[in-house]
Structure formats: structure tokens, C-alpha cells
């Protein structure tokens, strides 16, 4: 299985830095997936959820408000303004989901965007 490196950086620190199989990003022109060896690309990111397929085959969701992504063949770098990773045990997940919802709401997007993001998070968690 091929992997590539994914980094998610916010002003408050590094949220994620690991090898992953695949990542789905909420681009400003529409959602897109990145696999190893993707062509070099820079894109704006909208409010939404980054879905990471990590090296162990687990899915991780990270809610973001806005930012950029720079993809090149062996590395993907997300620079986002605010992000909440949904991971850990059940209690932590519940708290993280609350935080994520708050973050999404603060981004002043449409309710539809928030609803989509939240349902995505809940799907992954379950």
C-alpha cells in the first residue's frame, strides 16, 4: 500500500502530521480526493470536513473553517485557520464534535454546509 505525508497546520499548532492512504478535502471549487502521487496543486479550502484514511485503514475527520491546501506528489500540506480533530475515546469524541460544530458555526456558512459536515463526522464516528 502506498502512503503519502499529510500535515495540517493551524495558528495554534500542528493538528495532524502522519502518513496517510487517502484524504478528502473540501476545496472551494468542490470536494476532491488526494491519493499518493497526485499532481501538484494549490487550492483554497472551504468550511467543511477533511476526511483522512490513515495508514491503519481507519477514518479520521477533521473539521476546518477555511484555509489552503498544497498538494504535491509525496506531501500534502493543509494550512487552515481553525481545525478540530475528531479522535480519541467516546468522551473525547463527543467533546470534539461539540467543538467542531461550534467552529463550523463560527465560520458563518450556510446551514446546509454545517449539516453536511456534521453528518459526515457522525458517519465516520459510527
Amino acid at each position, binding site marked *: 500500500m502506498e502512503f503519502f505525508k499529510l500535515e495540517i497546520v493551524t*495558528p495554534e499548532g500542528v493538528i495532524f502530521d502522519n502518513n496517510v492512504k487517502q484524504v478528502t478535502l473540501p476545496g472551494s471549487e468542490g470536494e476532491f480526493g488526494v491519493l499518493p502521487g497526485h499532481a*501538484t496543486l*494549490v487550492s483554497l479550502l472551504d468550511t467543511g470536513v477533511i476526511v483522512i484514511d490513515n495508514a491503519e485503514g481507519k477514518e479520521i475527520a477533521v473539521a476546518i473553517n477555511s484555509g489552503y491546501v498544497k498538494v504535491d506528489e509525496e506531501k500534502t500540506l493543509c*494550512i487552515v485557520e481553525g481545525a478540530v480533530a475528531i479522535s480519541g475515546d467516546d468522551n473525547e469524541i463527543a467533546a470534539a464534535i461539540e467543538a467542531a460544530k461550534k467552529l463550523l458555526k463560527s465560520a458563518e456558512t450556510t446551514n446546509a454546509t454545517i449539516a453536511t459536515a456534521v453528518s459526515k463526522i457522525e458517519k465516520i464516528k459510527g
Partner: protein
Amino acid sequence: MASLKDIQRKIKSVKNTQKTTRAMKLVSSAKLRRTEELAKKSKVYANKLNELINEIAQKMCESESNLSDTPYFNTTEAPKVVDIVFITADKGLCGGFNSQTIKRVNKLMAKYKEEGIEVRLRAIGRKGIDYFRFNSISMLNQIAGLSSSPDFEKSSEFIQEVASDFIEGRTNRVVVVNNGYVNMITQAIRENQLLPIDPIKFGVTETCSSSDLELEPDDNDALLEVLIKRYIEFSIYYALIDSLAAEHSARMQAMDSATNNAKDMVHQLSISYNKARQEAITTELIEIISGMESMK
């Protein structure tokens, strides 16, 4: 000679001051550690952002568009109006921290005035505001309370106003002056030209290497503009954190020396207290002895 009671009172008051300064030092050192951590984290973000801007700017200079056509990068024109954004602390008791920044701002103002450039001041931090208000120098806008607790949203709100002034041509250059953190015992004044951005700072060279970077949305200017905006917002936020760290380290030092001074003073005072006490005893003894002598 002051009376025994007076000296005692003085010692007590100095000791109380010492307690306060020691506590303030401890508070500052704890806060410094937290701020330092914050600064370290945001440094990573800043580096990555710079990398990205560099790449896009590089890409733009490959294509037909000239970088200095974009207002953000136009460094060639001589400025007519300069905005000075300066950051001071909200509180005093931190040695020369605030006055150093103010001094530098004054120097800059004098320099620009000599060149016939109009200067506008934008103040962050109560101490700077107080100073310029006292000297009746007008400020364009002023924010108090931001420098003691940097907040990304508030600082970007502030700087967006500056940026829009710049784009609309009300100002031609924006300079940020703040006192920055070097290490626990040193602070250094930083003077950064925020706008226009010097492409060289991002390592953009005239001879561009070709890269097949795809952009989405496929509009260099739009993407770069958003990035630059973020860069400016982040720069000011970082300057705030930097200034806060410097403030805490300056206060730590100031309070440390104040504690030491208080200690010396208590020592001096206890010596004079002891002397005064001895004197009182001697006088009393002499009185008793002379009384006895006269009875003989």
C-alpha cells in the same frame, strides 16, 4: 535620626513591596512560558504560509503578470503616506519595554517627516496610546486590551482596515514597530515593513524555475490576494504574541531587580534600626549611671 518606630514601619513597607514584586515576577515567568509556547506553535504556521506564498508568487512571475503590478508587491514607488502600527503593553512596570518602542516610533516619525512623508499612527496597547495622547499627537486608531491577550479575530479586524486603506491608496506603506522577544533576558525592537511586501523576502527570484503547479480557483490574483491577506493578518497576530512574550520577559527582569533592590533596602534599614536601638540603649544606660552617680 529617625525614631525606632519610623524605621520599623519603613522596613515593613519595603518588605510588603518586595512580596508584591516577587509575586509579579512569578506570575510573569509563568505567563512567559505559556506565551513562548504559543509563539513556537504559530511560528510553524508562519513558515508554512510563507512557503506557500513564495510558491504562488514564483508561479505568478513565470506567467506574464508582473509582480509589481499587483499593489501588494509594488515596492518601487516612493511612499507619500506611511502608516506606523506600533504595539506596546497595556500595563507598565516592565522596565524600558514601552519607552523603547515609543522612542523608536518617535524616531521613525521624525525620519519620515524629514523626507516630507505624511505619517499616520495606529496604536495597539494602552501605554503607547496614553503617551501619544498626553503629548497631543493624534492617532488614526487605537486599541487597548489587545496586547495583553492577543486574539486572532480582533487583530485581523484591525489590520484589515489598514490593508483596505493601503489598497485604496490612502496609505502607501505600512510599518509595524514592536518590542520582540529574543530570549529570557533580551528584547529587541523589531521594525517590519508589512506593506508593500518585498518579493525578495519570500525568496522570489527574477529567474524563475518552472514548476507545473496547478491552482484552484484558476486565478492567480484572487488566490494570491487571499493568501496575502492571511499573511498580513497573521503577521500582526504574530507581532502581538512576540510583543507579549517580550513584555513578560521584560517585566520578569524588572520585578527581579525590584525584589533585589528591596532586599538591599531592607538590609540597609535593619542596620540603621540596630544602630538606633543601640543608641537608645546607650542613652538609657548613661542616664541610669549618671543618676546613680549624682545620688552618691
